[in-house]
């Protein structure tokens, strides 16, 4: 296994507010990593640090053995793609034009190239019909597909995503995750924040459970998504079992009014 990220004693704070504490972690090439944890546990901050958007206050991060802060942004952009949880467009642009921007790390300010490359990606992602549409005309699910396609235009080896399935219905949720799985099967390393524990159990090879800025547990879904861990971190009662059909972990939250019945 080739180690792609090595994180040592990472800490980060906004002012006095310490968001991440003493994180040690290593991620291998080809991993499908899910970052889970309650709201405010530092997931997004952690991902932004990996994306080189934020700089940590303490600790070291190595990307392929090189110190992250010593890698130039544009060089890093040739290998790592990032998808924020929400993109707010100021001006409406065509899907085709949006996708082409993914080539920026390879072209820089002044160089241009033909659009054929983008059309190929469009074919693979089945989004060619939207090419002439404006982004605002698309549904949330379609948008998400376009955003991921742009990262593929960027030809990223490692893909960082911040809740790619939020705001989506169940069909699109699995649609997007299937795309990511396919990319992962083709050798891409995927690191994504997920809200849905069941989805993370279905797709991820490795799960990082964050709690109050610290790593509570890292490992396979079976190791991390136990009812003991989840009950402590999320402060709620859950039922965890292996789904006999998918053979993956399923997590169910149990409403407190039902729990009360058992108290009596």
């Amino acid at each position, binding site marked *: 296994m080739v180690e792609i990220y090595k994180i040592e004693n990472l800490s980060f704070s906004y002012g006095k507010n310490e968001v991440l504490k003493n994180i040690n972690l290593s991620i291998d090439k080809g991993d499908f990593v899910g970052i889970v944890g309650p709201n405010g546990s530092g997931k997004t901050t952690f991902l932004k640090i990996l994306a080189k958007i934020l700089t940590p206050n303490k600790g070291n991060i190595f990307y392929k053995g090189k110190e992250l802060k010593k890698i130039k942004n544009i060089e890093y952009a040739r290998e790592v793609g990032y998808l924020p949880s929400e993109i707010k467009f100021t001006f409406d642009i065509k899907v085709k034009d949006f996708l082409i921007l993914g080539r920026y790390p390879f072209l820089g*300010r002044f160089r241009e190239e033909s659009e054929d490359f983008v059309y190929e990606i469009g074919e693979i992602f089945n989004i060619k019909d939207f090419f002439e549409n404006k982004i605002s005309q698309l549904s949330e699910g379609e948008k998400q597909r376009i955003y991921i396609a742009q990262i593929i235009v960027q030809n990223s080896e490692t893909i960082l995503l911040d809740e790619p399935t939020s705001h989506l219905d169940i069909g699109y949720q699995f649609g997007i995750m299937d795309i990511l799985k396919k990319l992962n099967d083709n050798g891409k390393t995927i690191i994504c924040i997920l809200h849905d524990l069941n989805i993370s159990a279905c797709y991820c090879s490795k799960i990082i459970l964050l709690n109050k800025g610290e790593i509570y547990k890292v490992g396979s879904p079976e190791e991390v998504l136990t009812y003991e861990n989840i009950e402590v971190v999320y402060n709620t009662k859950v039922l965890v079992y292996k789904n006999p059909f998918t053979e993956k972990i399923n997590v169910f939250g149990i409403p407190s009014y039902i729990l009360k019945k058992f108290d009596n």
Partner: protein
Amino acid sequence: MKREIFKNLFLFFIFIFAIYSGIFFGSEIYSFKKILNLSEIDKAIIYKIRIPRVTCAFIVGAGLSISGVVLQSVLKNPLAESYTLGISGGASLGIVIGILTGNIYLIPLFAFIGSIFSLFLILSISIIKKLSTSSIILAGISLNFIFSSLVLFLISVSNYEKFYSTVLFLFGDLSSFSTKILIYSGIIIFICFIFLYFSGKVYDIISIDEEKAKTLGVNVNFEKNLTYFISCLISSLCVSLSGIIGFVGLIIPHIVRSIFGSIHKKVIPFSFIIGGSFLILCDTISRVIIRPVEIPVGVITGFFGGIFFLVLLFKTEKIW
């Protein structure tokens, strides 16, 4: 494809028409017949007065428009331009101080310092107070009024008659520019235009999302500062030539985006041409409307621009 060609032809037609009307319409109107046999006096009017003036109008209109485009992109604010951000107000105050201290040849430099100062002020306010995009515009317009009042105050307290007429052009007038400034402003603005045109991609990326831009390898802070520098440079040169002409940098990019789409490789050059043509036309109107009296072009652009600004405010449902 056909529509693209039609749009480009339309653009070309407007450009030609603007130049034609700018040169041949005015207090003296030349018919086709007259153009073919011009007297020496007519030639002098055309070469010495009309052509420089049309050039000046084009440069100012084009410059204000492209600086508006890039400011809107980096601030992610469709209402931003040198007027609504107070940049032109700052430049005009700089100019008055320049004239008062007797540095007439350094006017554009004073204008530049004034514009940088006011942009710095407005950005600091917006960062400290965490203003929303529309509040920034309100602050910018207020700043413009403060600067204009200071300009008027300085004019009033100086009893110097000549000074009075030199400074009056600050309220938007294309009749009293200096040819020297025109030549080097034209060159500088054209160079800025070429640079901005080739940086189109960068503005596309920054206007989408700053974090996304960083992870695409764009050095966001550097690009932003560079853009502020260039747009202050352009605006201060424009103010040195023609005084404060508001709303051009707002109307033109907006119209161009709705016709040609929002890709900056298109928005920047088309805004350059349409902005220039627009100001030539406004200037022609200002010379023709109550012939032979000339009204300042700022009156015409202010009138159309104000109406356009209002329509834009009411029409749009988006929250800026």
